[in-house]
């Protein structure tokens, strides 16, 4: 291959080279940005569960949901949420023997209606340091996490609203607790979001819960790809149980997420196919324009293969440059789109707030799209740009093989 000739040819026909590079770059940029944003969207939606280190959340629906003769809910004092009831020890025993469960952690979520308003209280199982709402300790802004009974951590904004400082005494029901930490809930953590965090035993005491039960169980699976099978097994073993995974958020999010999930690859490939078509058309047009040059090269002794290699060299460089520019532009677009916030709606089963508080903004949190660099996507994009160049070369080679130097030179 005559490299100096390739570079000079590309430099001499700047406009043509630029059109080819931009053609590929546009297709690749669309491919990268659509896929990067789609992946970020999926990650954003699964963030609430990821933040808990859990694959599934298990709870049992409140009795009134199945028995309408029950009395209406009380809105005074400390109570269980309207949406669930305590899981019995029998329920927990059944869960423990379901195969494929790696770890299990329980929590007791309470609602407290007092004269000062409404607040949520989360009793945390400290025995599982990496599963469930215990994860919120990573978001401590001040102080530490409770180490013994009688200690609480408050959500920072709640503490500020109630003018409570680190080290203050804080009353829940008739009991007094010492505030040992303040934390800030990160985005996407609404299914672990509460105003007050305390040890599970304290929450159970507040509830007057003799059996030491919980109302939320977080499960981590040995093999997350078997999520649906495990869900089915749990529901078969425990009729009436509610098992929620990040899929539920996707279902709540509706059309956009499904389009994002199913069509992003198709849309981006269509965009890329358009770019490939454009570059093939441009390069075949160039071939006609360059027939004189091809005729001369063949006349002086270059074989068809020599000429084709030379043209392939040009296509390769343009494809690579188009690929690199496209990948850079694609990520730039993706990161700019990453500044957009999307609302992630929590399914009712894992929404910790009562219906009247769900419109306050705490339930429908917005999450910035977590766009990140993907070596796999980058490699795929560069491979596609080379494939586009390869296709263009193939069609050029076919066209060129039909060009006889005598015919070309006779026409000149």
């Amino acid at each position, binding site marked *: 291959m*005559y490299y*100096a*000739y390739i570079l*000079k*040819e590309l*430099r*001499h*026909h700047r406009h043509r080279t630029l059109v080819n590079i931009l053609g590929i770059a546009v297709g690749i940029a669309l491919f990268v940005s659509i896929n990067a944003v789609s992946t970020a969207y999926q990650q954003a939606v699964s963030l609430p569960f990821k933040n808990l280190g859990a694959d599934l959340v298990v709870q049992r629906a409140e009795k009134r949901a199945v028995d309408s003769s029950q009395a209406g809910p009380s809105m005074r004092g400390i109570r269980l949420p309207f949406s669930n009831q305590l899981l019995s020890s029998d329920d927990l025993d059944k869960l423990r023997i379901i195969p494929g469960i790696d770890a299990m952690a329980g929590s007791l979520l309470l609602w407290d209606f007092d004269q000062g308003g409404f607040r949520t209280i989360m009793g945390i199982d400290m025995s599982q340091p990496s599963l469930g709402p215990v994860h919120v300790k990573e978001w401590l802004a001040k102080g530490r996490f409770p180490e013994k009974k009688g200690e609480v951590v408050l959500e920072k904004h709640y503490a500020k609203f109630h003018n409570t400082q680190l080290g203050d005494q804080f009353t829940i029901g008739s009991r007094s607790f010492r505030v040992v930490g303040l934390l800030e809930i990160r985005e996407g953590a609404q299914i672990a979001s509460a105003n007050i965090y305390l040890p599970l035993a304290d929450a159970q005491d507040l509830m007057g819960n003799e059996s030491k039960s919980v109302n939320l169980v977080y499960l981590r699976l040995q093999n997350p790809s078997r999520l649906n099978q495990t869900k089915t097994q749990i529901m078969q073993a425990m009729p009436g149980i509610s098992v929620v995974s990040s899929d539920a958020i996707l279902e709540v999010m509706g059309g956009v997420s499904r389009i994002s999930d199913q069509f992003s690859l198709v849309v981006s490939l269509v965009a890329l196919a358009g770019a490939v078509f454009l570059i093939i058309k441009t390069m075949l047009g160039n071939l006609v324009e360059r027939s*004189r*040059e091809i005729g*001369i*090269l*063949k*006349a*002086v*002794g*270059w*074989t*068809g*293969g*020599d000429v084709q290699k030379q043209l392939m060299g040009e296509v390769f460089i343009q494809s690579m440059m188009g690929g690199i520019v496209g990948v850079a532009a694609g990520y730039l677009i993706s990161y700019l789109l990453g500044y957009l916030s999307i609302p992630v709606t929590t399914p009712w089963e894992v929404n910790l707030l009562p219906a009247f508080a769900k419109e306050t903004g705490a339930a429908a949190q917005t999450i910035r799209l977590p766009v990140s660099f993907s070596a796999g996507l980058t490699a795929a994009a560069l491979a596609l740009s080379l494939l586009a160049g390869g296709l263009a070369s193939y069609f050029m080679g076919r066209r060129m093989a039909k060009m*006889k*130097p*005598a015919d070309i*030179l*006779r026409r*000149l």
Partner: protein
Amino acid sequence: MPLIIADNIHKDYQVGDVVVQALQGVGFEIEPASFVSFVGPSGSGKTTLLNLIGCLDKPTAGTLTVAATDIARLDRKESAAFRGSHLGFIFQDFNLLPVLTVYENIEYPLLMVQNVPPAERKERIERLLAAVGMADQKDKYPGQISGGQKQRVAIARALVTHPELVLADEPTANLDSQTAYAVINLMKRMRDELATTFIFSTHDQKIVGEAEVIFRLEDGSIVAKEMKGGASHDESL
């Protein structure tokens, strides 16, 4: 032994439903180191004949031997290799590659066709640049030099592979008469120095007089062969 032996060459072209007989039973012999011209009006078969001798096309019938090779039997790849090692071409439109400098235009047949080592390549190119009077223009691009200078570069490009035969199709058609004479005389001088056979086609009767052997073509047949003892003279372009 003659460098070229053509025996009863026919060449037909299919143009739509019509068969055009471009050459009809042409036969001739050309000795090595001769300076030959094919002369005739447009459509007489000059270019077709040069294309056949230059391995760019194949005869429909007849045998054509060039440098002891029956070139009608060569496949595409062998034809390309034969052109690269035995033949040089000069075109009416010069056909220099516009993106390459004068030096590079002379160099590229050596790079892809003969793979000559860099030192020898440089020596050959510089000698030819000096011989055609373009040494001081070697870094210029074709767009920066005159038509006569372009044709000198084309002559150097044709000779750089040390061919036995140079084929020039209407090499002076795009040049004024003074430059045309200078180009023809440069070709003749190169023939004298390198013992390379030159065959050029033309319809310019004044230029024809510079050839030593003239074949006159009409309607695809050779109608006359003239032998002359032309003396070479050089003029500045």
